[in-house]
């Protein structure tokens, strides 16, 4: 547990959280190990967790007709995976798969969701942090959509 606490404390995502909230987050955390090639979650499944990747590589992918799975993004050490636990209907929008042996810290989003409903200050602190991740991913997605390496955009 001490180990988990230290890792979470060092991650910029949690920096600035007050002691009470930080303790609450640590209480919702558990270690997880996923073997290479294993699915972490599938599109449409209930989303009850988010993850902090400690090592390894995770692909976010989507099934495309006739072509098979298309990789949309890879996430690696230090990245946060998943925000669908925070937004109704609380289901995953993409498949997540471990490309290599991956170690993560899983955070119980279902439990945190209830706590956020009861304590909006905690909710705001978490939303602020997820909004930053969402903004970065949106920016990346826009650049990908522009197809900047294709014909002159």
């Amino acid at each position, binding site marked *: 547990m001490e180990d988990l606490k230290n890792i979470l404390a060092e991650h910029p995502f949690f920096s600035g959280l007050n002691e009470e909230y930080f303790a609450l987050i640590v209480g919702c955390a558990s270690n997880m190990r996923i073997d290479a090639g294993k699915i972490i979650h599938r599109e449409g499944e209930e989303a009850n967790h988010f993850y902090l990747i400690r090592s390894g590589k995770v*692909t976010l*992918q989507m099934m495309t007709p006739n*072509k*098979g*799975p*298309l*990789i*949309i*993004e*890879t996430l*690696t*050490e*230090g990245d946060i995976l998943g925000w669908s636990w925070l937004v109704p209907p609380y289901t995953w929008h993409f498949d997540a798969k471990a*490309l290599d042996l991956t170690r993560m810290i899983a955070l119980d989003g279902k439990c945190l969701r209830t706590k956020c409903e009861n304590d909006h200050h905690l909710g705001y602190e978490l939303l602020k942090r997820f909004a930053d991740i969402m903004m970065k991913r949106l*920016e*990346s997605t826009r*650049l*990908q959509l*522009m*197809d*900047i*390496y*294709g*014909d*002159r*955009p």
Partner: protein
Amino acid sequence: MATDPELLSLKVDYKWNPMLPWPFQIRRVKHETEDTFTIELQPLGALEEFAYQPGQFNMLYVYGVGEIPISISGDPANPRVLVHTTRAVGTVTKAMDKMKRGDILGIRGPYGTPWPIDQANGSDVVFVAGGIGLAPLRPALYEVVAHRELYGKVVLLYGTRTPLDVLFRQELENWRARFDLEIYVTVDRAMTGWRGNVGVVTNLIPRAPFDPRNTMAFVCGPEIMMRFTAMELHKRGVDNEHIFVSMERNMKCAIGLCGHCQFGSVFVCKDGPVFRYSEIKEMLVKWEI
């Protein structure tokens, strides 16, 4: 495309005739990807060598079709072979794509400002390339690798469209196998089977292994990519003064006479193509310039 004997017999010093293309013969053509090819050229006639600095470009004349600026992508330590890597996008580049070993191209150059590699002595060096932008950076990479002991960490972050669009694949693999170079490749999208990164090249910057307070960054790719890359490098702590970008504008004369390549107060052919980011930052976000 025949060699023009009259042209070959001219004993002109090409440096004194900047508007006169010199005939070069294609020695080798290599198709790097579906739309990108590398040609190796050798000068004909009196010219034996073609010295240049990394980052400089030439005007390539496809006789009877047109003339375009293309950066030099070869090893500056070997001035006997001139190398250009080109993406076939329009009239001249597509005509060039059809050329074969033995055909003749007209060359004027080398022109423009080089990557200021000498300023990177003692620093970490970060190359960030997007798409065809890896080609103009390759001579600088050759030079840094040849004098590896002069630099701290050397990192290449390369983003392109799909795994099939990765340029110089064999060379990237060789460099990655060395213990003193950090090579990261990312693509915008991939089918399963690709084991590398997927996502934009800027995503690689926050975790790339370099010391931002002691880093020189050389960036080449589409303008949007360079803008976001410079912003991300700056966010990581790299001084805008230590970021260099290579600009593209349509060109005609390439020697600062016609004004075709004007970009705000500068001429890309003469004052660039390599600019210090801090000097052109404001112009990069203007709509019309």
